[in-house]
């Protein structure tokens, strides 16, 4: 067992070093498993695959033998047999028995996958078009996780990094060896949270909560992607999970809590225009740019422009209202529950004074607080 588990690690390390040098990567099986479930899935898959390969060789060995030996061109005369109940019964029964042999381990694994009881950590995962939110319910820590690959790499204006499209600004962090239970839902359309190395894929369904679990077997960074078509940027909402030792996890959590406290303090602050514009640009690129485009011009016929729009150049309250509450029946989500007052104030200011607009007015966090219902 030791060798079997060590081998994929060695191979993965070898592959990783190669991938860094070039894109030379012909991986033909699952990524090296890093959770108890992923190991079990791997083993089951390999078992089933070899059974299939075995049957294929027997059946098509027979067929190709016939193709070789029973050709008219070598003078083979056709036999005229065309029925045998015995043979039919045999080749109905044997596959049936093989299937029972396959069903047994699969059944045990399903029951294990479905057992989400007694978790050590519970994290609520929410899918948005096109990002993920992680909410550590026991610790009051909540943040968005957005694609970190720069636009220039996607548009082929800069060389692609080794984690191209599989990198985020803030990864989900979990402790190693602990049972992590995920509560999954979505805000707009169906997404699917998937990290191959952890053996978890679960659709996130708006209005419903599903659960899944994993216990990571070793520290590291594991990457995955949304697996359910969720619109334009479905290919651009990766998932990154950092598995840390218990001590590192505790340190990370403490740091996060301190940031939550700092953000709460921002809510009462009055910012300068430069501060709002700089922060607003960051918020805009992370939340708005995928639809309204980085230059604010939108996608004609699909997503409206910010530049010169009635909303972004009209009254402040109307603009803030749409950002807070979204536009029902369209792809515009409610950002009220997603962003804090300072972020919304900054992004509204940015939209009104950047992207080709110049209303000249500033929005402060206190105004957002007042308009929140």
């Amino acid at each position, binding site marked *: 067992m030791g060798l079997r588990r060590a081998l994929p690690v060695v191979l993965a390390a070898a592959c990783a070093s190669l991938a860094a040098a070039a894109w030379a990567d012909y991986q033909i099986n699952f990524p090296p498993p890093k959770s108890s479930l992923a190991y079990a899935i791997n083993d089951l898959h390999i078992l089933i695959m070899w059974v299939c390969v075995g049957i294929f060789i027997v*059946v098509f060995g027979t067929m190709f033998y*016939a193709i070789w030996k029973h050709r008219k061109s070598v003078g083979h005369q056709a036999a005229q047999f*065309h029925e045998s109940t015995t*043979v039919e019964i045999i080749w109905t029964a044997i596959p049936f028995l093989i299937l029972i042999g396959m069903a047994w381990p699969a059944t045990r694994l399903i029951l294990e996958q479905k057992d989400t009881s007694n978790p050590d950590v519970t994290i609520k995962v929410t899918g948005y078009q096109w990002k993920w939110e992680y909410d550590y319910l026991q610790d009051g820590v909540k943040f968005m996780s957005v694609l970190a690959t720069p636009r220039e790499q996607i548009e082929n204006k800069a060389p692609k990094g080794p984690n191209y499209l599989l990198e985020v600004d803030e990864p989900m962090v979990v402790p190693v060896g602990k049972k992590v239970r995920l509560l999954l839902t979505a805000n707009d*359309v169906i997404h699917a949270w998937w990290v191959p190395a952890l*053996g978890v894929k679960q659709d996130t369904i708006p209005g419903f909560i599903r659960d899944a679990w994993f216990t990571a077997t070793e520290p590291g960074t594991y990457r995955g992607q949304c697996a359910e078509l969720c619109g334009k940027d479905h290919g651009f909402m990766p998932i990154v999970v950092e598995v840390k030792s218990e001590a590192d996890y505790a340190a990370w959590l403490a740091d996060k809590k301190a940031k939550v406290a700092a953000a709460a303090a921002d809510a009462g602050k009055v910012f300068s225009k430069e501060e709002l514009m700089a922060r607003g640009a960051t918020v805009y690129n992370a939340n708005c740019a995928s639809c309204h485009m980085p230059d604010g011009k939108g*996608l004609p016929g699909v997503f409206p422009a910010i530049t010169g729009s009635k909303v972004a150049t009209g009254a402040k309250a109307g603009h803030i209202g749409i950002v807070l509450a979204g536009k029902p029946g369209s792809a515009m989500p409610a950002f009220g529950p997603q962003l804090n007052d300072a972020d919304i104030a900054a992004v509204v200011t940015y939209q009104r004074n950047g992207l080709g607009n110049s209303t000249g007015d500033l929005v402060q966090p206190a105004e957002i607080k007042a308009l929140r219902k």
Partner: protein
Amino acid sequence: MQAHALEHEHGHGAPSGLMRWVTTTNHKDIGTLYLWFAAVMFLLAGSMAMAIRAELFQPGLQLVSPDFFNQLTTLHGLIMVFGVIMPAMTGFANWQVPLMIGAPDMAFPRMNNWSFWILPAAAILLVISLFLPGGAAAAGWTLYPPLFIQGGISYDLTIFAIHILGASSIMGSLNIITTILNMRAPGMTLMKMPLFVWTWLITAFLLIAVMPVLAGAVTMLLTDRNFDTHFFNAAGGGDPVLFQHVFWFFGHPEVYILILPAFGIVSQIIPTFARKPLFGYASMVYATASIAILSFLVWAHHMFTVGMPAVGQLYFMYATMLIAVPTGVKVFNWVATMWRGSLTFETPMLFAIAFVALFTIGGFTGLVLAMAPVDIQLHDTYYVVAHFHYVLVSGALFAIYAGVYYWLPKWTGHMYNETLGKWHFWLSMISFNVLFFPQHFLGLAGMPRRIPDYAVQFTEFNMISSIGGFVFGASQILMLIVVLQCIRGGRKAEAKPWEGAQGLEWTVPSPAPYHTFETPPVVK
């Protein structure tokens, strides 16, 4: 019957001009129309696949925007399923069912005309949706809400197109069932029917059962989109997953609608070129019927990741695995038919053999996907893309090719160019595998489907796959050339151009006269 009387007054030949095709009630003309419609749609949806593979040749966005990419995958899927495979199979049914059972025409010739001529309307709706504001539907051929609810006007056109396609299929199926059950030549009992006729009879029942289900599902989408119903909206008490259950209750039998007639075609061709009767005819019929019945009981295996309870997962896994049994029986019977035959390898036989081997690979990956715990990893990845292209391209499409080469002499009166046919086969067979086999690896390694851009570690296999794709696409032009050549001329085909062929269709001259079996033949 009135149409027949009219035609008799005007003699027995085909009327000429464009109106011949618009007003025709002749099963052979309508079969031809269906097949050409499928060919045109195949070129359209195929060129979309070429654009998809071109975009995926390298990581990064090069040719199309992500939104347009989603439109391409959506239309490619919808058109290939509803505009290519289904019409092509109906074309075969129109041409061959009356010829094989000794009937003069289909039971309802005028409805037959309508069931074809509403198809172009649906195709036009889908094509113009590309040019409307916001572009065509981009929510995938599976139309899942709430994503489908977000789209613009073209999404409504897509719904109407599906309604029309469904109506066409239901009319076609009623026609086929009535024809088969009522118009067989004296002496042709059900258990003497050629297997192609059997598979189409069962397929037609499947179509009548499930097309209304699809129509219901898309109608609910329509009212959710336009009339504030909340069938699939949790905020209004609905459930997005309900759509998936209804869709796949249609969708899984649909898979067999696409493949059962293919089983039928191959079951005609293999005995011909093995010069030996089909092994286990009765068990083939029972296996087809078992597959059809099971197909209604397994739909949620397309939904193992939605979060079903453990019992749900277990039931759908067991039921799905069970399908391997009758499918296995069919494969074993084909191999047993070839065993100790006297085999020759003309183009139809080559495609039929490739069908058996490659469809079986698709069947095996289907078995892997049926294992719910493994499917958790593979669902919505390129592994699934590879799986269903093995069953639909090397399965259904290769069977269509086999059937076209097999019956082309009967349809045109000429032999096709065997050398070019073999070139078409070998190029298609090799490039198909270069195209789709690496996609298994991509899926296993973690590449989701329906993405316009991908992580760099998937580059090599995507390049290989795209190269295979371009060769496969180009090879299909060869098929077009062979068919056009064959229509225009070539060596004269005898009534029975294949030495080992059996069946009534080979008792009429080649090309088959405009009217056949006006006096029913007697089957011993």
